[in-house]
């Protein structure tokens, strides 16, 4: 199980993301097997379901990257008619998912999502996964 202190840490990273990036409507951190650890939303979002689906997508991304010998899959971008979703590996265990309804916000969202994921990974407390 993920300790509460780690969830609080993730939440603090999401808060910082929201302060810096005004196009993000919802963001969440989930385990690679689809369990929601932390979330923050400006607009309502089915975060638990998106977390699970995001983990599937990320795993498919990893499988495709492996198939093509492209190394590790870092980011998956889902560009939709009415919005954007970014799926970002934080490390081998966690995924950052960012949702935006701004079609023109890809650059900003990508930039902040990537830096948030990197920073989250760098300062991550040691997690006893039991």
């Amino acid at each position, binding site marked *: *199980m*993920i300790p509460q202190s780690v969830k609080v840490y993730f939440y603090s990273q999401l808060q910082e993301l929201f302060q810096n990036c005004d196009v993000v409507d919802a963001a969440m951190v989930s*385990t*690679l*097997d*689809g*369990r929601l650890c932390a979330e923050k939303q400006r607009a309502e979002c089915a975060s*638990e*379901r998106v977390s*699970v*689906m995001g*983990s*599937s*997508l990320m*795993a*498919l991304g*990893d*499988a495709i990257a492996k*198939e093509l010998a492209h190394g590790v899959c870092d980011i998956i971008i889902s560009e939709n008619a009415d919005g954007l979703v970014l799926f970002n590996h934080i490390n*081998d*265990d966690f995924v950052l998912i960012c949702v935006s309804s701004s079609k023109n916000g890809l650059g900003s969202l990508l930039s902040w999502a990537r830096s948030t994921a990197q920073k989250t990974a760098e300062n991550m407390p040691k997690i006893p*996964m*039991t």
Partner: protein
Amino acid sequence: MASAKYRLGFVGLQEHETLIFSCLLSIHSNKWPKPWEASANGSPHAVLYDLSNPEGLREWQQAQSHAQPVPIAYTPDALPDVRWSLKKPSDTSALIDLLKELAASFEKKIDAAPIVVVDQPVPVQQVESPQPTTGNTDSDLWGRLAAVAERHQAADADAKEIKLILGGSIGAGKTTALRTISEIPPIHTEARASDIVRRMKSETTVAMDYGEFTLPNGKKLRLYGTPGQVRYEFMSDILCRGGLGLVLLINNAGDNPLHELTHYLRVYGDFIKKTGAVLGITHMDQKSAPSLHDYETYLARDKWTVPVFSVDVRQREQILAMLETLVAQLETRKA
């Protein structure tokens, strides 16, 4: 090959009874030198007539004047003077015993030439010599599967590819089963388990597993394994679209396998009704209860026609036996 089998026809039986009998024949096909199969198109060696159905009774009476195909009375009443009869409802062993006896009588006739014919000449294909084979070959199975798939694709606009779904509970062996029969290195989407699943295994499927097998007609059979965890049900919905049938695996060593079966019957219920399914119970060596009979009773209670197997998913022939039954089921449904 189909010509190396005895064929059993059915007259007057309800559809689900015919389906169950067809599946039983398929399940037991590897146990005889010359197995029985349900007669879909070819002329049968014997016909089972349900005498509780007026049509079955009438045709059975007419069939009495012919030596071939052998008429078998399927009836709840005792018929002491009738040579070939099966008590209704039948259990598996009674049917199998009857067919073994019937096959033995055919073989005696071959040895004791000339064959005595009562009313009409016996067509050559009805008195074939026993074949020294041990049942069906792989290519026979894949050929039948290809034929079923072609019919399925013609009938279902969503069936753009030939795909079989492997679904079921966590740790039941879906990924292993797929690996056992795939001819390509399977694609896995596994993630480190972070929840209770870690008790059973370190990694769990989170999107799908994928494997392939080339059918005799050159088309690819695509094998999709679904994630076992409840929260990934959405993947099952996606993967089942246009699917040919389902191999459902339940881990008998799980906490409550019958409860899990209920869950998966809910998840895959519409798909099973539209196509077909076989149920494989794994890890029975670790935990013997519930028994196969418990599963059969449980399924019969809710009128599910899903043949049940105990299976070791590492054994290719055991997976093929399940697939053979699934194909028999699909052949019957589509016929």
